C-alpha cells in the first residue's frame, strides 16, 4: 500500500506536475511570469490532468484493464516531458534554486551581518522566509501524519469517494437522466463534474494494478492543495513585503474554516486552488498579455470547472473580464485569445456540463431526478 501510494504520488504529483510545468515554460517565451511562479501552479495541475485524461478514457474507451488507464496516462506524462526535454535543465535549476534558498534561510544563524541593533535583528529573524518555511514544514509533517492515520471521514468527501468507487467498478462514464449504481443502490446527486470523484478512481486503479488496498492518495489531496494555497498567497505578497505575506498566511490560517481544512478531508482545497490560480493568472494575462498566463488561465479555469459547478459558473465572467480588460484590437488581438481560452475551458473541464445538460441529468436546469 505504501509503495503504491509513493509510485502514484511520484507519477501524479511529480511527473504530471513536471509535464505541465514544462509545457507552461515552453509557452513562457516573454518570461514575464517567473518559472518559479509557474512551478507553483503546475504543482497542483498533475492530479487534475490525470483525472481529466481518465475522464476521457473512461468515457471513450470504457471497460479496459486497470493497467491500460494507469499506463496510458503515465505514458502521456512521460511523453510530454520528453517533448520538452530541453527545458528539463532549466526546470531542475529552478527547483534547486528554491530548495537552496529554503536551506539557506533555515540554516542562517540568528543575527544578520551589518550594524543592526538587537531589535532589528529580531525583526529580520521573525519577518523572513524562514518563518514561512517553518510553517510549511510543520503543515507538511502534519499532513503526512494525517494522511497516514486518518481514514476518509467527512460527509462530502465520502460522497465523492463513493462515486469514484462506482466509476472504478464500472470502468465507464456515461450520461443519463440519473446517476444510479444498481449494485449498491448508490445515487449520486452531485451537480459537479467528475474531476474530484475520479481522484478516488485513479487511486483505486493504481491499487488494482499493484493488487493493494488503500486510499492514501485520495487522502493526501486535501493537504497538498492546502499547502499550495498558502504558498500561493505567500508567494504573491512576498514580492511586495515579507511582513505582508506572513500577515496574509497568519490571517488565513487562524480561522475556523482553515482549522477544519487542516483537520478534515474535503474537496474545497482542491477546487479553491484552481479557482484562485485562475484569477491570479487572469490578472497576469491581462497585465502582460502573454501566452503562458493565458494558456495557464484557460487550463486552470477548466480544472476549476471540472472540480466544482461554481468553477463553471464563473467561467463566462472570467471570459468577459478577459475580453474587456485585455489590451489590443478587439478582432485581431483580443477575440482570438478569448477563443483559445474558451476552447481550453471547454476541453479541460467545462465540456462535461454541456453534455450533462444535453444528454445527462440536465445539471442545474432541471430538478434532481430520482429512481
Amino acid at each position: 500500500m505504501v509503495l503504491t501510494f509513493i509510485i502514484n504520488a511520484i507519477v501524479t504529483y511529480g511527473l504530471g506536475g513536471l509535464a505541465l510545468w514544462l509545457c507552461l515554460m515552453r509557452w513562457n517565451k516573454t518570461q514575464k511570469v517567473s518559472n518559479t511562479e509557474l512551478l507553483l501552479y503546475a504543482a497542483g495541475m498533475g492530479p487534475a490532468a490525470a483525472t481529466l485524461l481518465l475522464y476521457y478514457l473512461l468515457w471513450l474507451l470504457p471497460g479496459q484493464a486497470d493497467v491500460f488507464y494507469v499506463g496510458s496516462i503515465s505514458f502521456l506524462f512521460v511523453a510530454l516531458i520528453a517533448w520538452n526535454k530541453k527545458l528539463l535543465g532549466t526546470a531542475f535549476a529552478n527547483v534547486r534554486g528554491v530548495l537552496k534558498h529554503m536551506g539557506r534561510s533555515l540554516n542562517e544563524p540568528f543575527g544578520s551581518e551589518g550594524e543592526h541593533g538587537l531589535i532589528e535583528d529580531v525583526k529580520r529573524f521573525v519577518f523572513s522566509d524562514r518563518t514561512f518555511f517553518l510553517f510549511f514544514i510543520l503543515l507538511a509533517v502534519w499532513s503526512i501524519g494525517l494522511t497516514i492515520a486518518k481514514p476518509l471521514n467527512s460527509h462530502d468527501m465520502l460522497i465523492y469517494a463513493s462515486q469514484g468507487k462506482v466509476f472504478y467498478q464500472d470502468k465507464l462514464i456515461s450520461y443519463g437522466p440519473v446517476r444510479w449504481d444498481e449494485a449498491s443502490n448508490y445515487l449520486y446527486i452531485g451537480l459537479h463534474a467528475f474531476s474530484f470523484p475520479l481522484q478516488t478512481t485513479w487511486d483505486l486503479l493504481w491499487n488494482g494494478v499493484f493488487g493493494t488496498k488503500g486510499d492514501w492518495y485520495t487522502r493526501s489531496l486535501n493537504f497538498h492543495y492546502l499547502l499550495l494555497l498558502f504558498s500561493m498567497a505567500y508567494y504573491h505578497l512576498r514580492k511586495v513585503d515579507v511582513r505582508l505575506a506572513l500577515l496574509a498566511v497568519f490571517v488565513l490560517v487562524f480561522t475556523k474554516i482553515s482549522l477544519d481544512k487542516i483537520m478534515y478531508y474535503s474537496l474545497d482545497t482542491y477546487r479553491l486552488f484552481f479557482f484562485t490560480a485562475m484569477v491570479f493568472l487572469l490578472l497576469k494575462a491581462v497585465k502582460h498579455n502573454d501566452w503562458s498566463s493565458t494558456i495557464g488561465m484557460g487550463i486552470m479555469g477548466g480544472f476549476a470547472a471540472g472540480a466544482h459547478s461554481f468553477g463553471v459558473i464563473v467561467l463566462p465572467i472570467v471570459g468577459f473580464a478577459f475580453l474587456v480588460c485585455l489590451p489590443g484590437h478587439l478582432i485581431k488581438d483580443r477575440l482570438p485569445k478569448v477563443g483559445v481560452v474558451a476552447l481550453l475551458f471547454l476541453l479541460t473541464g467545462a465540456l462535461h456540463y454541456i453534455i450533462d445538460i444535453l444528454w445527462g441529468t440536465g445539471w442545474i436546469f432541471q430538478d434532481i431526478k430520482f429512481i
Partner: protein
Amino acid sequence: MESTKRRNSILFVLGSVVATCVIFLVYYLVELEPKGAVDAAKAYRDVETFGKLWLNGYGGHFFHFLYFGNLNWLAIPVVLVMLANFKKLSREAWAFLIVYGACVLIVMVHGYFTYRYKYTLSFLVIPFILYAGYQFFSRESLKHLRGWFMLVLLALAAYNAWKYKIIFNILIYTSFLVMPFLLYFAYVFFRSKKYPKLGKVVALGCIAMFSLWGVKQLLKPSDKVADTFNKRTFFNHRMPWQVFSALDTIDYSKGMVLTNNSPGVYYFTNTKAVYYKGVMDWCYATNDSITGGRTPAEVADYLKDSLNINYVVSSAFQDSFNATFTAFLVKECDRVIEDDPAFSLYRIRR
C-alpha cells in the same frame, strides 16, 4: 508635510477605531439570543436568527467572523475607494473587480446557506485587502503608517482567533509537532556569531523547554498519553468499523439498509443501501419524506413494505435532527451494534 502626516495619523487612528467598532458591532449582533423556537438545520448552519441570516448567511463572505476571520469585510471600503477612483484603475484592477464582484453576488445568492461556498473567495480577498491597503499606505504622506496598518490588522485577526479559541485549538492539536522546533531554534541561536552569549542562553532555554516537555510526556501514565493522543491529535479517527464490518455480512436479497446521511456505508462496504437525509427528512430513492405525517410504527411499516428495508444505520448526531425518526429507532427497532462515535446498526422489528 509634517502637518499632513500628523493629520493622516489622526485619521488612521480614527479609521482603526471605526473598524474595531464595526467588528464589535458584528460580534454583538451575531451573539444575540434567538427569540422563539430555533430551526436545528439553520442553527447548524449558523443562520438561525435574522441578524445571523444576513451577517453569517447572505453577507457571510464578509461578516462570518467565526469561519473566515474578521478582516474580509474590509474589502467593501477598499472596493468603494477603487470605484471612486475608477479613472485611475489599471486593467488588471478592473478584471479583478469584475470577477470578484460577480463571485460575491453568486456566493451571496446561492451560497448563503453553506459556509464552504463562502470560503471560495478567501484566498483572493485577503491578499487583495492586504495588497490594496499596503499600496494605499505606500504613499509618501502615509508611509509612516504602513507598519501600524499591518499591526492593527494583525491585532484584529489575532483577537478573532483568540475569541473563537482557534489559536488555542491549533496549539493543542499541534503542540507535539511544534515542540521539536525548539531544537531547531536552539541550533540557530547557538550558532549566532553576532550575539554569542545571548545566542547560547536562548539555545539552552529552548533545549530546557524541549526537555521539560519530553520529561512531562514520559512521566505521564501511558493510558493518559494514549488518551491525550486520542482526544487531541490526528489519531482521533473515530470510525464505526464494527457497523461497517457487520454490513458486509448481511444478506441483501432479503432487504436493504437505510443509511441516515452516512455515505461511508457505500465507500467502506459493499452494502445495498437507500440514502436518507434525516436532517431534511428526505429519502433519495423516493424523493419524499419518510417520517412526515407518520407515527413511528407507520414509519417501520413503510420502510419494510414499500422500500424493502430491514436495517438502519444512523448516528446520535443525525438522529438529533428528527424526533420522529429517533422515536422510530427506539420503539420499532433493535439495536444490533452500538459503535463509536455513537453510531449504531438497527434491525427493524417486524
